């Protein structure tokens, strides 16, 4: 029996396996876009073919962080902005896990912005879902990094003087090999994109537009969206990096002008994942590190044998 027999188990996966049988009391507000992410994620799992025991879902803090409570899997509800470093190390420790990180726009693009940049550039094989509702929800409605310029809140009563963060452009420039945007109001596309993101071998960034009916009634994610991959007016090739950059830039500008463009902006299927890169240069073993601790036959090296000679 393998130490991690949940991994790679071949059977039909039912999305209801990801629903806690004893539902915790939902703390999201009625009408919250986060329900849309949860639903899309559960629907994606059977297609991805992963069972709850081989999935590690790491979240940050905020309303998005509660995702773990309603999604049955190995869950790590961590701290403000730190879901990515925890998630990527878990992936290095056991590359066979399905690792998903999730956070909000404040959590992921604000306090965790630095980790976003670096995780993207390293191209870890994982999926990063950012619940983007352009507001700090759980702390009761402060201006977030994606709030539009001029956005008024209790902490910025004269309106924000800052341009919003451009998450798609940032992901692209940082080196993410899969960049997409979807919206809670579009469950079918959302599910499809999450399936693709999880199946993608590299860092998949999904900017997931969610609505916050309590604190951000003005946000434009409610308006009808256009799927750039399906719309006739856009002949977008997501494998072309410079086209993706242009498209992302347009989408980010038009979002604040009232037009919501979603879809896959960039897909690079050729770029090796970080684990593969590290294995290729001899800085990471082929076998999952975590397996060793359960393998009675593994021969553990002593520092003495390898290193002590140079001190004699």
């Amino acid at each position: 029996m393998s130490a991690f027999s949940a991994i790679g188990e071949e059977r039909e996966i039912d999305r209801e396996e990801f629903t806690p049988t004893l539902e915790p009391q939902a703390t999201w507000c009625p009408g919250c876009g986060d329900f849309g992410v949860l639903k899309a994620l559960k629907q994606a799992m059977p297609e991805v073919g992963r069972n709850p025991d081989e999935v590690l879902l790491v979240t940050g803090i905020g309303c998005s962080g509660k995702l773990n409570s309603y999604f049955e899997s190995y869950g790590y509800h961590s701290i403000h902005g730190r879901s990515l470093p925890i998630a990527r190390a878990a992936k290095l420790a056991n590359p066979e896990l399905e690792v998903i990180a999730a956070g909000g726009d404040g959590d992921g693009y604000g306090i965790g912005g630095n980790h976003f940049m670096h995780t993207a550039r390293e191209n870890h094989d994982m999926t990063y879902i950012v619940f983007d509702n352009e507001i700090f929800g759980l702390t009761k409605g402060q201006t977030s990094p994606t709030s539009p310029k001029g956005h008024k809140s209790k902490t910025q009563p004269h309106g924000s003087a800052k341009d919003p963060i451009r998450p798609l452009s940032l992901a692209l420039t940082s080196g993410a090999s899969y960049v997409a945007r979807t919206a809670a109001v579009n469950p079918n596309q959302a599910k499809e994109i999450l399936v693709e993101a999880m199946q993608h071998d590299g860092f998949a960034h999904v900017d997931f537009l969610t609505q916050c009916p309590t604190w951000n009634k003005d946000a434009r994610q409610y308006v009808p969206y256009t799927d750039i991959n399906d719309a006739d007016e856009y002949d977008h090739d997501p494998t072309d990096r410079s086209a993706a950059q242009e498209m992302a830039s347009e989408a980010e500008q038009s979002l604040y002008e009232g037009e919501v463009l979603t879809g896959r902006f960039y897909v690079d299927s050729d770029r090796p994942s970080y684990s593969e890169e590290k294995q290729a240069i001899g800085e990471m073993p082929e076998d999952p590190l975590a397996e060793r601790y359960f393998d009675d036959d593994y021969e553990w090296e002593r520092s003495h044998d390898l290193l002590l000679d140079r001190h004699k």
Partner: protein
Amino acid sequence: MTDHELMWRIAGGSGDGIASTSQNFAKALMRAGLHVFTHRHYPSRIRGGHTYTEVRAKSEPVQSRGDGFNCLLALGDSFARNPQEDAYYGDEEIKPLSENLDELNEGGVIVYDTGLLDSEDIPDFEQRVEENDWHVYPINLREIARDHGREVMRNTAGVGATAALLGIDLEYFEQLMAESMPEDILEPNKEILHYTHDMVEEEFEFTHDLRVPEGSHDEEQVLLSGSDSIAYGALDEGCRFIAGYPMTPWTEVFTIMSQALPEVGGVSEQVEDEIAAAALALGASHAGVKAMSGSSGGGFALMSEPLGLAEMSETPVVLVEAMRAGPSTGLPTKPEQADLEHVLYTSQGDSNRVVLAPGTVSEAYEQSRLAFRIAYGYNIPVILLYDQKLGGELMNVPASHFDREPNPDLGAVTTEEELEDAPHGPGGKFYRYRYDAEDGVSPRSIPGQKGGHFLVTGNEHNQAGHIDEDPTNRVTQMERRMSKVEAVREFLDDRDTQTYMGPDDAEYGLITFGSQQGTVEEAVARLNDAGHSVRGIGVSDMMPYPEEEMTEFLESVDEALVVEMNASGQFRGLTQKELGRFGDKLSSLLKYNGEPFEPAEIVQGFEASIQGQDVPDQQTTYVPAAGD
């Protein structure tokens, strides 16, 4: 003292090869059968600026820098350039000679490079030489190096010269050079070594009587730093993941691990900041790998968030904290022991962690292993606290000390077989945080294990890991987590991690922690030789604090002096806080000028303190007991 020990100091500019030359010098003497100990001093600069390393060698075990030194090799600072008359950094050129005279003992030997240094630039040089009975050998090392190889080989010429003056067999240096140098560099170095050695023997009449002591070892020795020891302890204990961000002096452990881990099939990650570094260690540990991270003061400050998460989520991890002088960036390359309170209490909420502070290079190996054993055995974060001095000093240790069996045991985890019968919540989650756990330790499951999924959260949580603010649950979980610290206390009590020095029934006590242990041990021996009645203890367990042992110790003595390298007496404060008494028995001897204690300073400080006098040395401070 000087007649049976060598205290050799090599001085020069940063970047002039002082560290590598002194390391080879120490290793040569170790191979010659001596016990060695090094002390290094360097500025926060890459090139130029006064730096030195001392190598102390005796036929008996040695574990402190000693008092002053008795042989100076002054190389000259090849990077010193001061075009302005009133340069900010002072008169750099002459520093390798001038800056080292204050600590040179009477009757000492001076070798200096006339190619870069001129003693006439030091106004009172001749006078001081006469007053102190120093024996001076001016040699143009630069010219010799240039004529027989390259100018950078001045250090080899210097070694050849001091080897001649001290009577050290060149064979040891030749061997070391052959092991480390490529052929094209080896030959000229060998020639310079022999040429200078023979020239000094022929041309100078030796007026000094300092010679290298004789010695032999019963068993094979290795020369290691505290940083080496910590890294090897981690590797032998099965650590296969490290994440870090460079910061002096923690970088040493990080570097050693980064080079070693690929050799044993492990992973090292240099990441964007220290918050990420500690968070990565948590992620790897959560996924089932023994993991570590670490930093020095300022970087460790950033780790306080993930540290708190590790406590609350009971994710095992080892964090090393290499202290340097603070506050803020402080003295980046100088030792201090002033981060003790920082590591004990940083992060929000009640501290639920373990802090160990090894006292010597060999203890660093033991305690690094112990740190992992506790972290994974109890699912608790463990901090290994040491300082720049212990991290960087080299000392010989019997090779057999490190010949231990590796420990792959992942500690308090379940297997899949165990998960089948383990309690699960009504929602299907594994009870990761069981109320009824023995010793408070509730075993974890590892992602990928069938039937093991649960929720980790930094919020208060119930047995399955779900966020839970119920007051009864809160109290139960808090008490369980705190009880683990008590269980660790018992575990540590059984292992005698404290080091006792001197007689059991002494009148006075000397207390210290961490890197000052060896120096205090030497001071205790000297004080007893001088007719005092002194007992010493080097404390290794900071949290949980060794209550029983310290109470016993303090009850056995009339008064005790706490020796530590900080300005506020943090360890003395911890002792009083933990024991709740003895305030009237404890006084402090403090040093916080960026240099570690010398044994004589402790001897003087102790004598002054029992006579109620001021400490004669301006560089140390005496703080009397409460109520005195």
